[in-house]
């Protein structure tokens, strides 16, 4: 059993490492003469780091990679069938599936926490959670969901599809790729351990000084998120090298499928800005365990420092979340409209423009934080400027469906919903970017509604679009279309009712992150809670459809969507090294209906250079 060996090896070495780390630090502190060598957070940090290394080596990194550092021969573990999903596997298709499934599970867990919150908030007064429990639930929901949003589409769909879309046989650094995935389970463990350490108190933003004085759950949050940041950076780096160097011959930048462009821009953002989160949390950890004074105003520190560093990452991060969603939506919209992607260059410009602007708007989260007056104006202007490149995504999407032949399958419905929902989320962003309105709306449910519209509406809908779209390619089987459509409409309607209504309590004076509110807001909160629960139920349908179809769905064929891009020209699921004969690209990917147009050909194929003509193409 390779799978059992991998997993148990990881857990075993991980645990051994954890205790070694604890003990090592204790020994160190004992030799240095500290009074209590055992009981500190520094011990937890040591344990976590050693445990992390043990885990990675145990799941198989040692044999595949680690031995090489010491000049020894490496050997891969070749697990068959489903077992490969539980080993340190370097195939990007396996990693893509690992990512997607892991994050769907995390999403459901965090969604279940949201359900608890909505139950508590259904009425004013306290129902069944204490204040501490509510804060813990809320923080964990936010943190897990942010992790899902940052990594699910780029890590899941991106890993699966990018090498296929560009005609490569794998990512540039396959072992690094496996490493980025296997760093994720420890993150989940770290975050899920927080309720047992007293529960996080600080929300996902972890503002000091609270995060310095609060309970030890905070340190697990710090460690988990720093690790998570590392996976983001390494993943981004891998995508960049892959996209720059591994495109098939003829696949020039101007012919790149738009999803690849989206991942390209996203990867830059992840690579450049993620360090901000790491630094912010590192400083907090240092304040906590070493008694440093970064955020201690009585010793020369400044709490605002944290907010600047944190948002320097976390604003760009919202584009890490949404750009892959946009890319997925545009990709699907073009294919299912059977039309060239409208204003392709402008869409690319949109991604690059957002990439360029994302780093200069962070202080719009700090309009009420007492920053100097002269900062308000520039950040207001920069923030509203972002709506121009974002608008170009809408130009491209709406232009593509106009006069197309829309094939309204489930992926297409989800893709259109991305555009629809983000229209609302983007417009409410303008209200928040405007300082005079933000002064009132900051930290109210208006903001909560805004970011659920952008993240859930823009990215999670994009994730579902991607999952439905690639399901036949990944599994070789077709999902149940009726159930898919049912889930779409259910989710779409419930989502909009829930979160559109949620703007209202915000304007009327309900602030966020509270377990209890003024009784005047009862009715509207009840509506939100009811439709929120209704929304949660729609995912049961999804889970059922996926599992059932994977096991007994009808065979899908190689190209059920009759799409032109390269991944659909190989078998479903694709062979280990993707393309039996390397493809050569001769034209634009979206030239549907253009006579004589060709995207990719396979010159080495036995039949001899059969061109893949628009529309058809499944052998």
């Amino acid at each position, binding site marked *: 059993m390779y799978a059992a060996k991998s997993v148990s090896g990881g857990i075993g070495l991980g645990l051994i490492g954890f205790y070694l780390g604890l003990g090592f630090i204790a020994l160190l502190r004992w030799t240095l003469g500290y009074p209590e060598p055992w009981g500190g957070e520094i011990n937890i940090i040591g344990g976590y780091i050693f445990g992390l290394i043990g885990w990675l080596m145990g799941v198989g990194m040692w044999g595949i990679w680690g031995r*090489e*550092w*010491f*000049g020894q021969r490496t050997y891969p573990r070749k697990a068959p069938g489903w077992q490969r999903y539980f080993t340190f596997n*370097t195939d990007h298709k396996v990693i893509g599936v690992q990512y997607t499934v892991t994050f769907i599970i995390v999403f459901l867990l965090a969604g279940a926490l949201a359900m608890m919150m909505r139950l508590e908030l259904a009425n004013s007064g306290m129902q069944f959670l204490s204040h501490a429990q509510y804060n813990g639930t809320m923080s964990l929901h936010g943190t897990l969901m942010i992790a899902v949003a940052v990594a699910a589409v780029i890590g899941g769909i991106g890993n699966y599809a990018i090498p296929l879309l560009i005609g490569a*046989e*794998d*990512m*540039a*650094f*396959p*072992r*690094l790729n496996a490493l980025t995935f296997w760093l994720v389970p420890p993150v989940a463990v770290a975050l899920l351990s927080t309720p047992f350490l007293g529960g996080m108190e600080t929300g996902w933003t972890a503002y000091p000084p609270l995060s310095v004085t609060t309970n030890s759950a905070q340190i697990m949050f710090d460690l988990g998120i720093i690790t998570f940041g590392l996976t983001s*950076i390494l993943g981004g*780096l*891998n995508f*960049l*090298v892959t996209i*720059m*160097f*591994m495109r098939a011959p003829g696949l020039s930048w101007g012919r790149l499928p738009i999803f690849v462009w989206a991942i390209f821009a996203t990867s830059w953002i992840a*690579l*450049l*800005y*993620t*360090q*901000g989160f*790491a*630094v912010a949390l*590192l*400083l907090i950890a*240092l*304040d906590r365990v*070493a*008694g*440093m*004074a*970064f955020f201690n105003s009585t*010793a*020369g*520190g*400044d709490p605002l*420092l944290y907010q*600047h*560093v944190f948002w*320097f990452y976390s604003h760009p991060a919202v584009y890490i979340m949404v750009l892959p969603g946009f890319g997925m939506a545009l990709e699907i919209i073009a294919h299912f409209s059977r039309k060239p992607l409208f204003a392709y260059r402008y869409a690319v410009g949109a991604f690059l423009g957002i990439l360029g602007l994302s780093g200069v708007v962070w202080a719009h989260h700090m309009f009420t934080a007492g920053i100097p007056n002269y900062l308000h104006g520039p950040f207001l202007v920069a923030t509203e400027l972002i709506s121009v490149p974002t608008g170009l995504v809408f130009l491209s999407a709406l232009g593509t469906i106009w006069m197309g032949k829309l094939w309204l399958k489930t992926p297409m419905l989800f893709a259109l919903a991305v555009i629809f929902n983000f229209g609302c989320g983007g417009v409410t962003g303008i209200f928040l970017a405007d300082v005079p309105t933000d002064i009132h709306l900051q930290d109210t449910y208006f903001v909560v509604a805004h970011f659920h519209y952008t993240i859930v509406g823009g990215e999670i809908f994009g994730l579902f679009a991607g999952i439905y779209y690639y399901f036949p390619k990944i599994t070789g089987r077709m999902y149940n279309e009726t159930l898919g459509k049912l889930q779409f409409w259910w989710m779409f309607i419930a989502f909009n009712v829930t979160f559109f209504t949620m703007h209202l309590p915000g304007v009327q004076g309900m602030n966020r992150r509270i377990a209890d509110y003024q009784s005047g807001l009862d009715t509207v909160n009840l509506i939100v809670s009811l439709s929120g629960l209704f929304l949660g139920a729609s995912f049961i349908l999804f889970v059922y459809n996926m599992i059932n179809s994977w096991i007994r769905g009808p065979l899908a064929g190689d190209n059920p969507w009759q799409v032109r891009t390269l991944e659909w020209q190989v078998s479903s699921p694709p062979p280990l*090294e993707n393309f039996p004969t*390397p493809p050569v690209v001769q034209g634009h990917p979206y030239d549907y209906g253009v006579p004589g147009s060709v995207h990719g050909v396979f010159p080495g194929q036995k039949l001899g250079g059969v061109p893949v003509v628009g529309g058809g193409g499944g052998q």
Partner: protein
Amino acid sequence: MAVAASAAHGHATHNPVRFNRLGLWLFFFSESILFGLLLTTRFFLEGIEREHVDQHLGLAITIILLLSSLTAFTAETAIEHNNQRVANWFLMATIVLGIIFAAGVGFEWKTAEFSRHEAFGSVFFTMTGIHAAHVVSGIGILFLVWIQLKRGKFNSKNHWPVSGSVMYWHFVDVVWVFFYPALYLVK
């Protein structure tokens, strides 16, 4: 470090060293932001104020680190010309200089006249600490490479591990070129 997929199979056009080089540069990009933010923190909290630090020690370790870049460079050039003996010695020298630097930082920590419980101390210890962590990891990597170099694994055609680790060493050096004035020379 990471070796490209294509080493094992597939397209002849893929050149793993090219991949690794770009990958490493991107990694440096990302790390620059880390160090840049630490610098920003320093000026955000303290402006251009500075507490007393040991100037002689600071200058000495800076010179040592710069020298080590020079020896690292010599080692890389030597292996490019297939001169294993010189490469071997100079890589060793780099490691030794690196260790002296790290020890110097340790000494500075021990003798510092400010405490980590106030802002300048926090900044100073964190910046030198994070940098020293990079130096130490650099030493570790160089050491692993050195062992393989001694075994004669590298030659003029195949020496990416040497080049890569030396590039990393240069990068850590360049970071210090920014940190040193910010911590020792300002005002």
